[in-house]
């Protein structure tokens, strides 16, 4: 009845993602993101140790870049733009966090429904991965500041990566590297776009982007 270590690490990543939902403070958000991604890097390394495939270590290093590089980059943007907390959320942050926990429960049920996910009993690996996915979606849906949307996207990405990590036996390394590169480029581009948004709209509140619609 014990939890495997890899499940515990995955669960830790999910917990960090859920805690991320609870704050509108962008810097704290990034800190939680960093913790969350570090946990995923640790998970990668641990699985590489378990499976004895050293190539995963490279992937772990890649995730480490994501865990450290992206928060630093986004932190730099936050400082430059002088925006440090979300202007408002569609759902109060605490409620959102508790919803995230409910989602973790839901994803446990879901991962039980998906057949063929390691045996008859859902592992916490799949549960955490889907839970993280939900957290990312919640983050993107409920926040108004552009940076939170980028972070939400990254969390979704991490959830998918964790799913691939725990549910498949080794995605080819080149694919993982390709995904990582895409994500980094996407963050760079959106990050740079933020400066333009700040310049044109005087804030990075994306609810102001309503000029274009039918009628």
């Amino acid at each position: 009845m014990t939890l495997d270590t890899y499940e515990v690490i995955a669960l830790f990543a999910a917990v960090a993602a859920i805690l991320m939902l609870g704050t509108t403070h962008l810097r704290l958000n990034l800190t939680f993101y960093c913790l969350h991604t570090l946990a995923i890097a640790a998970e990668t390394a641990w699985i590489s140790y378990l499976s004895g495939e050293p190539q995963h270590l490279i992937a772990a290093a890649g995730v480490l870049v994501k865990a450290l590089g992206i928060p630093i980059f986004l932190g730099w943007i936050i400082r430059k733009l002088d925006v440090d907390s979300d202007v408002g959320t569609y759902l109060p942050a605490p409620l959102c966090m508790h919803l995230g926990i409910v989602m973790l429960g839901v994803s446990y049920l879901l991962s039980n429904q998906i057949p063929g996910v390691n045996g008859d009993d859902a592992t916490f690996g799949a549960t955490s991965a889907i839970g993280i996915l939900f957290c990312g979606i919640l983050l993107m849906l409920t926040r108004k500041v552009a940076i939170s949307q980028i972070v939400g996207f990254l969390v979704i990405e991490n959830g998918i990566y964790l799913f691939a990590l725990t549910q498949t036996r080794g995605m080819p390394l080149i694919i993982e590297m390709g995904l990582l590169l895409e994500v980094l480029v996407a963050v760079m581009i959106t990050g740079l776009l933020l400066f333009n948004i700040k310049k044109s709209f005087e804030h990075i509140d994306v609810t102001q982007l309503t000029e274009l619609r039918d009628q």
Partner: protein
Amino acid sequence: MNLSPRIVPLDSLPRELKSAVQPHGEWRLGLLTSLDGSQLITLLLQPVTGEIQLWESPIEGNRYHSLTDFGIPQAHWFERGLADLFGLFPEGHPRLKHLLMHDQYPVNFHPLRKTPLSPEENPFSTRRFPFLEVSGEGVFELPVGPIHAGVIEPGHFRFSCFGETILNLEIMLGWVHRGVEKRMTEVPWQRARFVAEAAAGDTVIANALAHSIVVESLLEVEVPRRAQLVRTIALELERLAMHIIDVGGLATDIGLLGIAASMSRLRGKALGMGERLTGTRFMKAFVQPGGVRKADEAALSFIGKGVQELRKDVPPAIDMLFGVQAARERMSVGKVSHSLAVEFGFVGILGRGSGVEYDARTVFPHGAYPQLAPKPVIEQNGDIRSRGKIRAGEISSSLDVIAAALDELTDGPICADLPRNLPADKFSCAIVEAFRGELIHLACTDKNGAFHRYAIKDPSFNNWTAISIAIRNNLIADFPLCNKSMSLSYSGNDL
């Protein structure tokens, strides 16, 4: 600055005043008072060009139509003061309550009135303070003070709250009314400066300086340059020390005790410089009519060194305070809008925090001003943070001014000789930028050459209204921080 009053009939006073003062005109209401209860004296200041006008409107009896009611909110507290001190009652004043003298004084006692008032002429039969009652389900009153948990001056606050939200705040002051203005006319003018200094214990230099300027201009004495510069240094030292501790107060209230501790230490340093210069930490008995009491070279070079040290030590602590995100969030309340600041004539930090570009140092001559005057620090937001930022900005500009004054300092006499007697029947006034804002002293001599009336307007007198407005609809727990950001003086108001 010597003045001669222009007679403005009481009938036309409201109209003329309204068209002159902000926001309709360009002037601000400096003082609204009386000499002995048989006239209204209006002092008008031009905040850009530095012109000053004095209007005199004789009154028959003890009633006049309220100027506040006429749409001049700047006159609001002045009229309450007039009713208390002179028994001059404004008719139609929206909220006429006593200001300075609480209910243990006899109802018909008006200390500055020369001819006693008969009870029929007094519209009030009691000095009870009728607090504004806010009613409704769930609304309750929270009385605070006059004795507070911390060691501060007495003032009674009456909060009408709905849950944690403040619906209305009424302030009852006057607990430290000492009769300063009356005492000023009773002591010989040579000793009046000690009374003037005591008007507000933390604004010693500014009060002494204003008093000195009043006396000097009555006597038409030229103050030596060295004395002017030393006065400037003393004034800025006072500003420095008080701003530092006020910023520290903000840090204390939001719980950043480390920063608060550093600010206390730095303020001690500034006070130490003052002590070295004057002999007392709050610089009492230093500025005197004609010049200053002493100007020790060693003390001045000590100040030079101290300024260098403060320049190094103060900014990091302040940056830390304003850099903490949660602190920014806490300091984003207590807004005073620009229009409100203009309408009520808020001065000093409060006005400049709301975008009012008025700094008496740039306009009215006192000390080495306006030559040495720094560029006023202006913020637009009007919240606690912008007031804090202005203090931070003024700390550094004060340091610059002190350094500049020290550079310019040359040898020379530090005090001019004064004639023995004041001239008869003359008006004189002085406007000084104390650390809280514009401080006004107005003196009028009688035919014997003694002070007939000596009026002091502390900056807090204008600004007390702001706190009740700024805190409305905010949380109770934010009140102390908001209060600290304005740092109003009780004794300066009560006099």
